[in-house]
């Protein structure tokens, strides 16, 4: 039965991807992409990757979809005339065949699973994925939060000079007693609870700063789209402090380790003292969540604009 499910699932994923690739209008392609993201997160569940399924549902299907839909609303409806299809089709087919062959030719599993599971409790997180993200490969995670910051700086740099200093995105107009506003009042509290829960649960169960932060970012976007609150200006010091708080705390903790290592043998750059590792990881995660949520929301909202 599970094989039948997986085959159907793969057929749906591939079908949605092909439709997203060849759909006649870009709007249809974007909707297919959202649908595709939902199916892909189901595939992650089938691979026992619950953390990834959460991330894909929240980011792949959720925020990327919102990003594309918002961009499409600003574009003129235009015909899509792609280029010649032969060479791209050959390249795509060749790569897919090569990768398919490679998958079948791979040696028996060569992963680090057992090593990670042995070391994870000592790193302060029972969820091995969180242990990898915040202890073993913390440098990746730190750089990744910096990548988010770099993308946001790049997006903001694209504002027009006249609009610089305004809040991110467009000024929103909403009828105060309408469905949209009501929607914006009911969902955010629930979303906030879900987001915080995902972070809190992340050290021992699936979830974590990125998944929780994405849900909170979606909540912030909804609040803004429903006109319930105005986003702060891009020049606001408070906004900027929230943006960098996560990476700053992360880097600060890392540096304390490096300085301590001068006279303490166990300490090192990016090492957390084992006795407090669990609470420190939770603390870092909370700060990261805050920064990730605000950065993602601002990324999707786009550069400040003055055209009402």
């Amino acid at each position, binding site marked *: 039965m599970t094989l039948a499910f997986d085959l159907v699932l793969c057929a749906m994923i591939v079908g949605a991807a092909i439709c997203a690739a060849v759909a006649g209008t870009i709007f249809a392609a974007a909707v297919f992409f959202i649908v595709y993201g939902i199916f892909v997160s189901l595939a992650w569940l089938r691979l026992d990757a619950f953390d990834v399924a959460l991330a894909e549902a929240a980011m792949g299907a959720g925020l990327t979809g919102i990003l594309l839909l918002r961009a499409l609303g600003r574009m003129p409806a235009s015909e899509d005339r792609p280029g010649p299809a032969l060479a791209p089709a050959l390249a795509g087919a060749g790569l897919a065949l090569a*990768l398919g062959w490679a998958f079948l030719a791979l040696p028996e599993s060569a992963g680090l699973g057992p090593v990670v599971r042995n070391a994870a409790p000592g790193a302060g997180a029972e969820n091995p994925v969180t242990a990898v993200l915040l202890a*073993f490969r*913390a*440098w990746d995670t730190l750089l990744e939060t910096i990548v988010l910051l770099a993308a946001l700086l790049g997006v903001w740099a*694209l504002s027009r000079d006249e609009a610089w200093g305004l809040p991110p995105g467009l000024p929103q107009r909403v009828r105060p007693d309408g469905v949209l506003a009501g929607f914006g009042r009911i969902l955010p509290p629930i979303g906030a609870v879900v987001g915080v829960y995902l972070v809190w649960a992340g050290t021992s169960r699936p979830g974590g700063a990125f998944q929780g932060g994405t849900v909170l970012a979606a909540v912030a976007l909804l609040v803004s789209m429903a006109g319930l609150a105005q986003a702060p200006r891009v020049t606001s010091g408070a906004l*900027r402090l929230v943006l960098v708080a996560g990476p700053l705390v992360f880097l600060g903790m890392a540096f304390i380790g490096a*300085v301590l290592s001068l006279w303490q043998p166990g300490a090192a750059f990016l090492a957390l003292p084992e006795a407090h590792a669990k609470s420190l990881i939770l603390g870092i995660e909370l700060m990261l969540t805050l920064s990730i949520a605000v950065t993602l929301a601002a990324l999707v909202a786009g550069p400040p604009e003055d055209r009402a």
Partner: protein
Amino acid sequence: MSLILPLLAAVPLLGAIAAVLAPRAGKGIGLGVAIVLLAALAVLVGGLNTPVVLPLGGWEPPLGIALRVDGLAAAFLGLAAVVMTGVLIAAPYRGAGREAAAFWPLALLLWGALNAIFLSRDLFNLYVGLELLTLAAVALAALSGSAGALAAAIRYMVFALMGSLLFLLGVALTYAAHGALDLAALPGRNPQPTDALAAGLMTAGLLVKTALFPFHAWLAPAHSGAPAPASAMLSALVPKASFYILLRLWFEALPDLGRPGFLWLMGALGTAAILYGGVMALRQARLKLVIAYSTVAQIGYLFLVFPLAGGGGAAQPWAAGAWTGVVFHALAHGLAKAAMFLCAGLWLAAAGNDRIEALRGAARATPMAVFAFALAAISLMGLPPSGGFTAKYLMVTSAFAAGAPYWALGPLLGGLLAAAYLYRPIAAAFAPVEPELRPVPRGQQAVPLALALGAIVLGLASAPPFDLLQIGRPEAAARGVE
């Protein structure tokens, strides 16, 4: 050392964060970062006898990520530090407006990404570093906001994203086959049939990012469309990062995969890039485009390292010379190219456009800048006594020693082409007419001059960097020295 490596990796990022918080203090923060990093590098190079390894968080690979500094890493860290210091001194952005608020943090993030790449030994970490580098570089390329710069930035991004994905695909395949991401773990791996595909995908991705001919289409518009300080970083440093990963990959991690056909192809594409870039540079009317196409050509030289020092040839006596020559070339080109773009920026501001005719008489109006440009040109042409000369000398002699004189064709013809395309702006600058340039303060001309002098000094005093490069040199390239 347990403090130096974290400083090198994290201080630019901390500086970028500070510049986000205090956009008006961007320049001061940038210069502060420069001072700290130059000092840290001085301590590092002074005390470096054997490669230094620092497992981050105390977690040893394969579980964790390790930073490592050897001679090659130190040389590229030094190049980044010198060029970035020059660029940050020269950059004119003030206040908290759109451009200033974007430039300072993005430039520091670009520096942080470069250092992260030069220090990292982990394939996936290198991927994250490359993405950080790409996003910062694309944003800087688009900084002016003009339609042309935006199109160039988008084209850059299209290529760079494709390159990232190919690299990531190769990394994924490597992990799936070996359960390892650490470069040091790969030479002793249990060979798998998928290795060639994984290495091919990673290499293809890095070639796109390095803009090797025929993947060069994005480079010239993006580098010439950016503001001059950004162009200097984009042209002098950014392609070097992906090339650096190629060096690590093919000379340390997977040297056994270097089949003769592949090595020959790399050399052939490199030679084609030298010729194509040179001819295109000759045909441009705008100075920044001349310099940008010159980068296309200069990148070609780097790939001669594959046929001359890669694969089975690594055991030959000439391999060490070729490898060192190519690294010298990367360093000298970085310094010279940064100097040239900064000069071009000064003239663009002084003349209002960057057409070559607008330079007529510049030697009288901006003598220091013209001198800097001429010194940088000497290094690019490969004339003695410059770093470029040392590099080309090593490459050409290796080619003859290897019994493959055709690999000397690129450097020799490339030098002639460089002389031809750089003659035009220099001749215009020395034209005996009254210059139509607004005056440029000497302080601003001093920065490109210092960088260009660096490219010359690299040739005059080539022994210290030469010795530095021997520290922890990959065995594939070191075997020949004995």
